[in-house]
């Protein structure tokens, strides 16, 4: 039955200075896979996953798109490197560090707060560590993943950040969080 959910309710913090690189190409290509590993030290993630090593995360966005999270100061050099390693292969590699906002969500009952606004299956056996889920949060497109039960991440378009923050705020009022997951 319902447990009290008051205490350590989740907070949303915008993270600055995250470098992001858009990478479109044929994810099955050997050249691409090698280039990615060589440049980032992280393998191309499986479908619907995100893989992380140190400062770098690679997220599967679509069958021909990755999103690279890297230290901001290295974006330029990495893009150059990737472009060079991809050689003649068709790619689109672009610095999109400012395209989206990255949020860190910390606290308890994060699943419950998200479940108020997203139609995805947030049960623990479905939304697992390593899952990178693109979906909607209220009316805007976002993606979620997490490091631990009490530390999640969300990205959305920069221009929609305020909406995301406000919606999160009204969804995380301590006395109004149901205990579900």
């Amino acid at each position, binding site marked *: 039955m319902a447990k009290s959910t008051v205490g350590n309710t989740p907070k949303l913090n915008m993270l600055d200075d995250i470098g992001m690189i858009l990478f479109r190409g044929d994810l099955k290509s050997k050249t691409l896979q090698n280039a990615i590993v060589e440049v980032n030290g992280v393998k191309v993630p499986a*479908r*619907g996953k995100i893989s992380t090593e140190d400062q770098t995360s690679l997220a599967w*966005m*679509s*069958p021909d*798109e990755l999103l690279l999270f890297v230290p901001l100061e290295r974006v330029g050099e990495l893009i150059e490197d990737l472009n060079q390693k991809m050689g003649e292969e068709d790619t689109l590699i672009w610095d999109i560090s400012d395209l989206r906002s990255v949020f860190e969500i910390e606290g308890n009952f994060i699943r419950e707060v998200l479940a108020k606004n997203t*139609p*995805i*299956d947030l049960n623990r056996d479905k939304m697992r560590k390593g899952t990178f*889920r*693109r*979906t*909607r949060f209220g009316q805007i*497109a976002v993606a979620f993943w997490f490091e631990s039960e009490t530390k999640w991440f969300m990205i959305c378009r920069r221009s929609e950040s305020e909406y995301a923050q406000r919606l999160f705020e009204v969804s995380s009022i301590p006395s109004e969080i149901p205990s579900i997951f």
Partner: protein
Amino acid sequence: MLKLVCPYCGIEADETELISGGEAHLKREGPASTDDDFEGYLFLRNNPKGIIFERWRHAMGCGKWFHVARCTVTQEVFGTYPAQTHKPPSRIMEEIKSRRAGQVNGLNSDKAEKFS
């Protein structure tokens, strides 16, 4: 409220994560086409009361278009498949046949011929 498996992401997507795009497998008619063919391409629709092959976009997800075989009466889904094809794959047609044994009348006759 439909839910459809995005064949690219391999996950069930909620209708609110998707955008519908109407009948699939339309053949584009360009500048050389006749008035009739062009009208057919742009306007005339099978609009079946039964099984439709249609387009959906995983808009709040991977952004890809995919195709769905769905019954417009019962909302049964017979499968989804990537959009890069001119006709439904055979596994979809098999699924339809196995579930609708002997009553493919939901299918439009021209498509049924073409695809069976």
